[in-house]
């Protein structure tokens, strides 16, 4: 029993660290609040969904930015989508970078956009890993 308690404490601490590092935002807590008996895996579902979704958006963004003449409208679309879903997911860091990304899109700064894309990718995979750990531990 003591071991379980310790593990649980570790879990809580781990979860806190995610918030402290800014990887997750307050919104994630709201997400957790939405989870109830009717949908016990709600957060995981959302996270999985976000995972797939964001991968798709990132793929599209990579494609779009590699074009010779970049279609910024398309880029902005995906950035905003990504921003929307990440903020909705509570993925605070990703959402923040998306805001910067959006600003660079407005400036049509391809170089900085690409940099942002890399950052978003990194953040996303980081988040993915952390969330997987978190969910794994929660079980």
């Amino acid at each position, binding site marked *: 029993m003591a071991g379980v308690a310790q593990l649980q404490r570790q879990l809580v601490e781990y979860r806190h660290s995610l918030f402290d590092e800014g990887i997750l935002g307050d919104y994630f807590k709201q997400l957790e609040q939405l989870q109830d008996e009717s949908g016990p895996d709600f957060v995981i579902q959302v996270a999985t969904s976000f995972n797939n979704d964001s991968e798709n958006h990132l793929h599209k963004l990579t494609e779009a930015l590699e074009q010779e003449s970049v279609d910024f409208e398309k880029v902005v679309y995906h950035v*905003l989508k990504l921003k929307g879903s990440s903020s*909705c997911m509570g993925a605070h860091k990703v959402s923040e970078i998306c805001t910067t990304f959006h600003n660079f899109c407005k400036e049509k700064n391809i170089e900085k956009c690409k940099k942002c894309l890399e950052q978003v990718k990194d953040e996303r995979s980081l988040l993915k890993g952390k969330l997987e750990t978190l969910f794994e531990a929660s079980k």
Partner: protein
Amino acid sequence: MVCKMEHDQIEDMDTEVLHSMWPEDVGPDVSKQFNVENPGGDQDMLEEVTIVEEPSIVDFKRLLELTNYTDQGSSQLAYLVKHWEYKQATAVRLLREELDILSKQRQEVELKKLEILEEHRFEEESNGCDKRPVSILEDVYDIYEDVPRRKKDAVVQSKRVEIAAEYGTIVYWKQRALHSEKLLEAGTQREQALQEKLQESIKNLERQSSPVEELSQILKRADNFLHFVLRNAPVVIGHQDKELRYCFIYNHFPSLQEEDILGKTDMEIFTGPGVKESQEFKKEVLDKGKPAKREIKFDTELFGSKTFLIYVEPVFSKAGETIGINYMGMDVTDQVRKREKMMKVREEIAVQRAKETEMNKTIHITEETMRAKQMLATMSHEIRSPLAGVVSMADILSNTILDREQRQLLNVMISSGDLVLQLINDILDLSKVESGVMRLEATKFRPREVVQHVLQTAAASLQKILTLEGHVADDVPIEVIGDVLRIRQILTNLISNAVKFTHEGKVGIKLYLVPEPPFAKEGSQSTPNIPQEENSSLTLQLSSDEKGLSGQNHDECPCQIHLLSDSSMDGDKEEQHESTETTVWIRCDVYDSGIGIPENGLPTIFKKYMQVSVDHARKYGGTGLGLAICKQLVELMGGRLTVTSRVHNGSTFTFILPYKVSSTSDNSDDPDELLDMADHDAATDDITAGFFQFHPSNLGSLFSSNGSTRTQQLSSNNIGYNSSNNLNGFSEDSYSFPSDDVRPKETALLEDASSTVEVAETISEPESSFSSSQHTNNENVVCRGKEIKDDGENHVKISSTDPGSHSESSREMGLMAKTREPPGSCQSTASSSPEEKSKLKPKILLVEDDKINIMVTQAMMKQLGHTIDVVNNGVEAVRAVQCHTYDLILMDVCMPVMDGLQATRLIRSFEETGSWDSAVKAGIEQSVLSSDSIQQSKGSIPSTRRMPIIAMTANALSESEDECFANGMDSFVSKPVTFQKLKECLGQYLT
């Protein structure tokens, strides 16, 4: 000289330093300035020049006097005399030298003569040695007697020659004698010549001129020079006596005769502007005794408009008294003109520069404003939403099972969270009003209800023994149009202020009609910010809202529709409404019997962050923003907020606001309402009641926060009022979920509600869809008779599959919406039917392509007790609207296939024109399924009602907000959508 003078002038133009243009003092060193000492060459030069002497007019007598009496004159004379003396001295010296030379020569000659004589004697002596030294000259042997001896000598010599001839050596002596004689002759001759020269010199001396002649010559020469120099100079030189009468004037361009000028003053000679000034200036110089310069503009008949630079210098007598002035003027008209031109140019440049800086400033300010606007959007997003998240989470937490202590702690948390939220909202409101972003809405509302409700909420959190009362005069219309939220905000603010500063007695609201106040007449065009064109749809929307309030709908609604359709069969409802619309001015007094405001506090009371005193702030708390917001809001709505107060007796805040009254809707509403209300319990009082009174009933309540609406609302559930149950419903409906107020007695279990709906749906739908067919042509353009059959069939199918699965796992369904939904069909979950209570459940459509957003929004809605329809893009949204009428559409802006903005435009165009032509043009074929709209046509809501569309976007900046409004959206929610935001929206649009 002329050159120099001009140079001086040019300098003077800028510096105006006073210094003489003419030699200040004609003293001994004047020679430098009067180069007349070398008459020879100059004389020749001057001879070639013909000097016109006419221009100068001289009063010689006066000049003589001047030279006699003035310092300058005498010094000038002294100089001339000195000069003459010097010359004479030189001549005397020369003569003396010559005399010296002459006397020297004579001495020499005499010496020589002596030598000769001595020689002569010696010879005689030598002769005498041989013999007896007896000279032939023995008896005249007196060499000391000059002249006679010389004569004798000559005689003797001649004798001797004779002797020499006698004695042999005589030849030699003869020669010598001859030589001597010649020398003597030459000497005498020279003497004579010198004497003549001396005579001549003396004569010359006598002949040489007298000092006066010399003087006048020099003067004449100087005069000539002056004339020569001044020949073409545009100057006037003059001398005036003590009475400023001209004694002398030199004018190159004389226009007057001597007798016209001399002995007269300026004033007597000229007339016109400037003359007097110059006269006075001269007088001034005369009085002060100091030279001065001034530029004077003349405009005389004599020489027209000219500017003269005038130098005036006082002339002193030897005794030091001023006896007149020297005056010199120069025409500087051209220079002045040039200078003025320069000034103008400079001025223009300066103005240009000022303009430029102004422009730059404006640009800067505009940029700043833009930045501030962006900041505002960011602020509201960055601060409000996380805070709202915290508060709403606490809220949700309070719905879970908690023990007593936990609940108390939670309540503290919620109330303080609310306080902060309220503060932020206040600040944002204020900056919104100030930056002109604040938008006013025009909705119909009942002033009595507002008063009642505000008092009620205040009473709910009251912790003192106070009586809250409201008086509404009979002439106040039952319904008026205005921004009810803002008005309520103002009232709540004023009431909570009043309560805060009142310890005993009463606090109340008085409402009565007033004639149009004078301040409104000045700017009446600009004051009502209420959009006109919305009125018609608003009226309709509101009339359907009211039935929500009364709690009993299905009877009243068709009735109302009939009335409307009767009066507006031609389709010109709008005109009807506008023609009968009038503006009323309602004065609202919020009075209390509190501590009052000291007179010196009154001017600052409406200022931001200002409270009457620091003590007050400490004692009563608060930020000092409330009244500032109230005032801004009242003024924004075209009214005035004023205050009267007496210390210890209380204060009265008064605001007068214009409201629109739509008489058409009143006519249609009132009988219905009254009829309906008659059925309903205790409702009749509310509509026309003019007096409300509340006594504190919850003194035991632990937690209250002034101005925090939520706490009040929360607590209102627990508090029993004297008033009817219905009132409870009122207080709820503006702040919380609509489902609550629909059935106030069933507030507890949301799950129950949805299950009821479910059952109701399955039973009612087929029936209603068919029965509605007769009414379609009247109102609903979308529902063509031809489609009805198909609709019915299709709908039955869907409803058989949908509702069952939906209510249990609406979330799942949202996820699978895409796959399940046949193209062109609508996903219907909670369809309404007029026969059932379930109809009251608002229909909400979420248009969103992002799965996560769908999941979260659905989950939230579920917690809020709503089920929602979900479509994934603009085209699907349009199709959904084609089949159903929604009470609320949440629309993502950024979507594939068709974005939210276009979809909104299409829906709005349908609402306005009643046809989907523009949608067809955009490539969306008319949906075959429109069963809902058939029901609607028969039911409560006409299809042309304006559906509230709320934009949801991740782009939080103001420009995208403006874009949303421009495309017909009603409101704007930035992502992530929080519980709080969602609640606010639902509260605002589903009441």
